[in-house]
């Protein structure tokens, strides 16, 4: 296990290191002044000379890269070209906002996808199964941006249940400290915490549902297919023959077996959700990292683009690492597989 852990960790560090080099190179790929792209300080600004010094503007590339890395580690990520506010502070806030709906969306996807998948498998080839599985294929094929609009029209406009955009009614005066709205409400001194919390949750429903829809359908299909496979194994037939109810078979035997494959897929699902969060956030005006990146791309705000890309890609890498380690820990066979090829 230790060897496995070290091995994975090395690859993670290597990947992140390559990522920083890539992100460093972006400063040259973007048009305009390199130091400005890094620091967000325009050449005409009185602070430019200082930024130039701090980032080793006249030294060679290696020294510049070491300065760059140093700044990255010290969380001195420069300022936004547009708002002239520090990038790092905004980056953490937007990241937390995204992470919040991502986590809830993943939870919702698991809570809906897995039971429905198991249900379909338990009723294999029955009408229930057919309905569930065709819904899943259909649901998997709806473009998220279309689904989001349809849901807004239905549940916010036609039936006025839910708000359309934002994190919370701004009149609750919740300061975005951490970025995660639920935590911010908890931390706030507001006298109306309960109301604010309900309001924040209502704002969250639509983005979370839209974000969860695709992974939920994926999980459903995966769960059903693996479960069906397990159900046809001889040992399951044996326990069935001894009179174990189909429900018990599914929960006791099929599900634990299906979980491993699903955890392997969770990395992919997480990445998918991260990508979709760009679309969902921009539709629901959610102050997350995806919509932050999108605005930066449109406004050509290079320091922000860099930071957002760095964080998004690093997140997928780290999440991949965590799931990998978890799988290696829970299912020793994974460790052996890895060494089989290494």
């Amino acid at each position, binding site marked *: 296990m230790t060897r496995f852990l070290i091995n994975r960790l090395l690859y993670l560090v290597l990947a992140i290191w390559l990522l920083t080099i890539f992100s460093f190179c972006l400063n040259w790929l973007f048009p305009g002044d390199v130091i400005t792209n890094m620091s967000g300080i325009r050449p005409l600004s009185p602070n430019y000379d200082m930024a130039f010094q701090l980032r080793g503007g006249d030294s060679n590339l290696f020294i510049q890269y070491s300065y760059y890395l140093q700044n990255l580690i010290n969380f001195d990520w420069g300022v936004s070209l547009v708002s002239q506010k520090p990038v790092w502070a905004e980056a953490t806030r937007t990241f937390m906002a995204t992470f919040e709906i991502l986590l809830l969306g993943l939870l919702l996807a698991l809570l809906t996808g897995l039971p429905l998948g198991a249900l379909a498998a338990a009723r294999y080839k029955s009408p229930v199964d057919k309905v569930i599985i065709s819904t899943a294929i259909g649901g998997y094929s709806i473009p998220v941006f279309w689904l989001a609009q349809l849901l807004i029209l239905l549940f916010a406009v036609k039936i006025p*249940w839910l708000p*359309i955009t934002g994190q919370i*009614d*701004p*009149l609750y*005066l919740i300061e975005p400290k951490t970025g995660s709205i639920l935590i911010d409400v908890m931390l706030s001194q507001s006298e109306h915490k309960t109301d604010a919390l*309900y309001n924040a949750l209502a704002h969250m429903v639509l983005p979370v549902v839209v974000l969860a829809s695709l992974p939920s359908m994926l999980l459903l299909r995966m769960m059903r297919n693996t479960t069906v496979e397990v159900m046809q194994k001889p040992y399951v037939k044996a326990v069935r023959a001894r009179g174990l109810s189909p429900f018990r078979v599914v929960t006791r035997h099929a599900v634990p077996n299906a979980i491993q494959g699903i955890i392997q897929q969770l990395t992919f699902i997480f990445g998918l959700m991260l990508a979709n969060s760009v679309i969902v956030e921009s539709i629901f005006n959610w102050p997350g990292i995806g919509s932050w990146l999108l605005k930066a791309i*449109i*406004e050509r705000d290079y320091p922000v683009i860099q930071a957002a890309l760095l964080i998004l890609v690093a997140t997928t890498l780290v999440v991949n690492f965590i799931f990998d380690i978890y799988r290696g820990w829970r299912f020793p066979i994974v460790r052996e597989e890895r060494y089989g090829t290494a």
Partner: protein
Amino acid sequence: MIKLRSTFPVIVTLLVTACGGEREIPEPLREGLVYCSEGNPEGFNPQLVTSGTTVDATAAQLYDRLIDYDASSQQFVPALATRWQPLDEGTRYRFYLREDVSFHETDYFSPSRKFNADDVIFSFNRWLDPTSLYHNVGGGDYPFFTATGLDKLIKRVVKVDRYTVDIILRNADSSFLANLATDFAVILSAEYAGQLAVKETPEQLDTQPVGTGPYRFRRFRKDYFIRYNRNPDYWRQGPGIEHLVYSITPNANKRMLKLVTGECDVIPYPLVSKLQSLNQKQIKVQSEVSPNVGFWAFNTDKEPFNDPTVRQALAFAINRQAIIDAIYYGNAELADSILPPTSWAYTTTSQQYEYNPEKARQLLDQAGVEPGFKMTIWAMPVQRVYNPNARRMAELMQSDLAQVGVEARIVSYEWNSFRRRLSRGEHDTALVGWYADNADPDNFFRPLLSCAAVSTGSNRANWCHRGFDQILVNAISTTDTEKRKQLYHSAQQLLNQQLPLLPIAHSMRYQAQQDYVTGVELPPYGGISFRKAGKELQQ
């Protein structure tokens, strides 16, 4: 499965409680007002800008002026100055200031003294005197004052005593008071500026503002919100709400939907025809005749737009009536002059640019513009009074231009970058517009088309015509209305023939709000004012 069973009821309860319409409205929502604005302000000091978005967000909320313009009585009324008098045949104005006016007390500044003559002098010298400490903070451009010539007109601002100020002019000027009453001539705190200068963070003056207005600045988060608190020490009748929030919502459709769902209390630039088709009873739509013009400016610095024939040809190529129908839904009037017909200086022009593709092609050939000529149309990313959807308008024009063999590409950036790039003259042509800051017709000409406005960047056509400038100067230096009228008539004829810009429409100004919102004012000249805003909720 067990997990599911226990969480499901929780989710359902949450949904039901969160959505239940029966709940009493929580206190913060009753005490505050949400205005869904269309974009980010560039800063919080209207002196530095001409953008309506910034003016809407700051001028009437954070600041006061020396005098105000009352539209109903069409007179100037006292604000920070209680009274004023012209001296020395109109070349010196004496202002008597109001006593007992305090500046905002915020978490970044606590005033130790009340408003006095020093603040007025500081505020004027900021844009007037290039040697003043703060002149170059924020770039040193004061487009409104340069474009109206106010910086040339005023010679000095002199303190007579603690509560009396003299403004000395170089010559008598008929538009002086009108310009002082605009949203741009705000009064800042000299004490705050002094403190910031000591701390060496002078740029904070424009990002963390302090004024005397009905609201205090609390927080701004780009792309999301601006928060204001009521100023409890306001010197006149203040608002009936505690909090004012600008929720930044650039998408017009989303803004309308948020009004329908009650997430916004007031929205600017509603899609009127759509709102009417929704038939929502609790929503009020206010409309007002507004002195504005949406136009298509040609960058006359660039080939071939420096040739009047080309500009005329392009004008003939555009079906402006179709634009009025499709973009304004008929809520606007086809413009044939830059001045709206309601202005006393308006005149009909001799040459009408009706839709005529053949003639356009013929003129283009004559000017030597080959078929397949490529150009850009810069379209504003936000809605303005004078143009509800510039990008869509650009699409219409794109296909009109394709008919005469001109390939147009549509360019659009975020609003502030868009304006910055326009000022640098990166565009070939641009769809922009103007609405009047005051009742004087001069406000349509000098800020938009004078040579002085080229350098400040508000002359989007980059058009500088000496003869035209002379007419404007002659018109401003006389108070004889009949003579001025003649001069403005000839100015319009000249424009019509030179066509640095093609006027498209004079539009109505609309605003939609919930019926329980009261006192939100749309002064005909200038931004929106929440000074008397309140909410009348039934309990």
